[in-house]
């Protein structure tokens, strides 16, 4: 080989030959290998990114297997799902993994987002990383909604009816848009067919945006629990083997918890009405969304006006896009932000409350609570976040990851231990 050709660093001749021409192994090594330097102080909250990736792969694999046995027709969809459950070899397992996998995908992503909110991972220079994450989250919600329609149970049908109806609030063109989305005047066979097509498509769009999410992540590397920029190489360790093994351990624990639901509580997170075949002539007593969409459903119902309600619901998600510019504090980690820390806890509790309220009947005290929690959601982002930078005095930041105590000498304490001291 001529010396003018730049050679790959790999020793294995076959890998070297391929990598020289197609640097796929170099790319992998830089993504999750020894060439990806990572802060050495990441805690277990940083496991959830890779868990989300694994969950997506599980969903795509089980989803393709389900698609091989599913029939997207209003007369056969429900029966074909039951056929999967009863007559397809391992069908019940594939379907229960897929069904509960959707919930667990959201659990993982919600924790991933909560981690980002706590440690300020959305702040400069990682704004686009955060925004791409919100795009993934939006796509996930769309995919989950479309997928929930496919078993063609009562909740599938009426959920689809309620959600597509949101678009009817658009002035002048609302009704035509709804008819265009549904492929008719009501949710029917054309709706089911297009929802199926889109449900199959969107996960691959998500995979594409995840690729961008990872590219953006590697531009500046991971944030860390201290929220400070990494200045020296001694604070970095290669992703492999340190974080591959840590992620693998986390994955084992995650899958064990996931299996508790798949094998022992497979319908705990679902709604019994979805085992009743869809009937356009009989409306269920309560139409409730899946739990992961529930907080936004609560926001929708909190506003008495239909148009404003829909705007509030989309606004609640939209607000996440401008979060990096609402929070002006230069300090990332909530460890060093005594006031933000308190408001963060209130925000999480408020979010859980909204999730609870979204599945309750909107009557009596629930209406007042729903409105209070909705108001607080927006106050948190639009008032508290910008205001905190003015009224809050952050604690002194450590100089580096290795010296979390402020002296320049070596403290000999792990970051976790020094955190406990404060």
């Amino acid at each position, binding site marked *: 080989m001529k010396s003018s050709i730049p050679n790959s660093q790999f020793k294995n001749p076959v890998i070297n030959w391929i990598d020289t021409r197609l640097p796929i192994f170099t790319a992998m090594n830089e993504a999750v290998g020894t060439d990806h330097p990572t802060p050495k102080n990441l805690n277990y909250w940083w496991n959830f990114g890779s868990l989300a990736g694994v969950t997506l792969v599980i969903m795509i694999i089980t989803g393709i297997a389900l698609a091989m046995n599913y029939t997207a027709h209003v007369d056969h969809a429900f029966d074909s799902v039951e056929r999967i459950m009863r007559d397809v070899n391992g069908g019940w397992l594939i379907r229960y993994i897929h069904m509960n996998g959707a919930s667990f995908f959201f659990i993982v992503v919600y924790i991933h987002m909560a981690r980002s909110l706590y440690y300020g991972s959305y702040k400069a220079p990682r704004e686009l990383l955060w925004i791409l994450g919100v795009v993934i989250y939006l796509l996930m919600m769309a995919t989950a909604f479309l997928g929930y329609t496919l078993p063609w149970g009562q909740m599938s049908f009426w959920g689809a009816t309620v959600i597509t109806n949101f678009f009817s609030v658009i002035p002048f063109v609302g009704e035509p848009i709804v008819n265009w989305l549904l492929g008719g005047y009501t949710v029917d066979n054309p709706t089911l067919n297009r929802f199926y097509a889109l449900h199959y498509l969107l996960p691959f769009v998500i995979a594409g945006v995840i690729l961008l999410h990872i590219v953006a992540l590697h531009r500046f590397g991971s944030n860390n629990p201290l929220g400070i920029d990494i200045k020296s190489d001694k604070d970095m*360790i290669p992703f492999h083997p340190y974080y591959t093994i840590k992620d693998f*351990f986390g994955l084992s624990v995650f899958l*064990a918890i996931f299996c508790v639901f798949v*094998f022992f509580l*497979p319908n*705990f*997170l679902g709604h*019994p*009405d979805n085992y*009743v075949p869809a009937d356009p002539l009989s409306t269920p007593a309560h139409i409730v969304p899946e739990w992961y969409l529930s907080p936004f459903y609560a926001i929708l119902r909190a506003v008495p006006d239909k148009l404003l309600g829909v705007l509030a619901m989309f606004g609640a998600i939209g607000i996440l896009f401008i979060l990096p510019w609402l929070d002006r504090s230069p300090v990332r980690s909530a460890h060093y932000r005594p006031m933000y820390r308190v408001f963060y806890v209130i925000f999480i509790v408020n979010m859980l409350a909204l999730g609870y309220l979204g599945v309750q009947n909107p009557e009596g005290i629930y209406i007042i609570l729903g409105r209070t929690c909705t108001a607080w959601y927006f106050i948190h982002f639009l008032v508290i976040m910008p205001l905190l930078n003015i009224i809050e005095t952050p604690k002194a930041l450590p100089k580096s990851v290795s010296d979390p105590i402020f002296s320049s000498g070596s403290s000999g304490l792990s970051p976790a231990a020094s955190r406990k001291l404060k």
Partner: protein
Amino acid sequence: MKRLLLLSVFLLPFTTFAAGPEVKGVSKDWGFLGPFGKYDKSSLQRGLQVYTEVCSSCHSLKYIAYRNLSDLGYNKNEIKAFASSFTVVDGPDDDGEMFERPGRPADFFVAPYANDNAARAANGGAYPPDLSLITKARGGGANYLYSLLIGYKEPPESIEVREGLHYNKYYSGNLIAMPQPLYEDGVEYADGTNASIEQMAADVTEFLTWAAEPEMEARKRTGIAAISFLLIMAVLSYIAKLQIWSDVKKKKA
């Protein structure tokens, strides 16, 4: 630990959501509950008898085939004999005519009515739902069904029972279109068990729970194996993690 806590916090709001109907029913200690729960085969067989002699006159069970009855402990010949006691409409034959023939193990349970409208017409407009999924399709599951079946009592003075409806203590709203299906000694059990209302309700509930979740025993068995495997994997990977990370801690000192 933190994560477990967090998970439970996340799931907390949904416990009420997954809970039962508005009217509080009876909770029975079923043998099929719990991680090692199994169906009681003799109860399943009695339940099949109750379904066949009572429920099946109005309710279909369309996702169950006669061959599935091997789960209840019947052998091939018994299933063949049972299936052939039903008449299946098949066809069209070579002349384009529908014809009747005795049932075969591969046939699905024969429905009592030709179609939904016939079912409605025969039941005063109320549609008797298919029972294949009934314990999954109602909040409260097996307990709901059992409560409903033993819930037919004398209506209290305050409640006016309209024509075509029946009082049921455990039904939401207390008025149900289905007349009381089970009476003392309504069936004569093949195994000689005393056919009290509670006994028949429990047996048919066990049977219909199986009909809704025939995979349950295999599912739980697989689950025990899968979780055991994952826990061992977690312990081993944690040890490996400590080993690999030991030099990171050393550097710090």
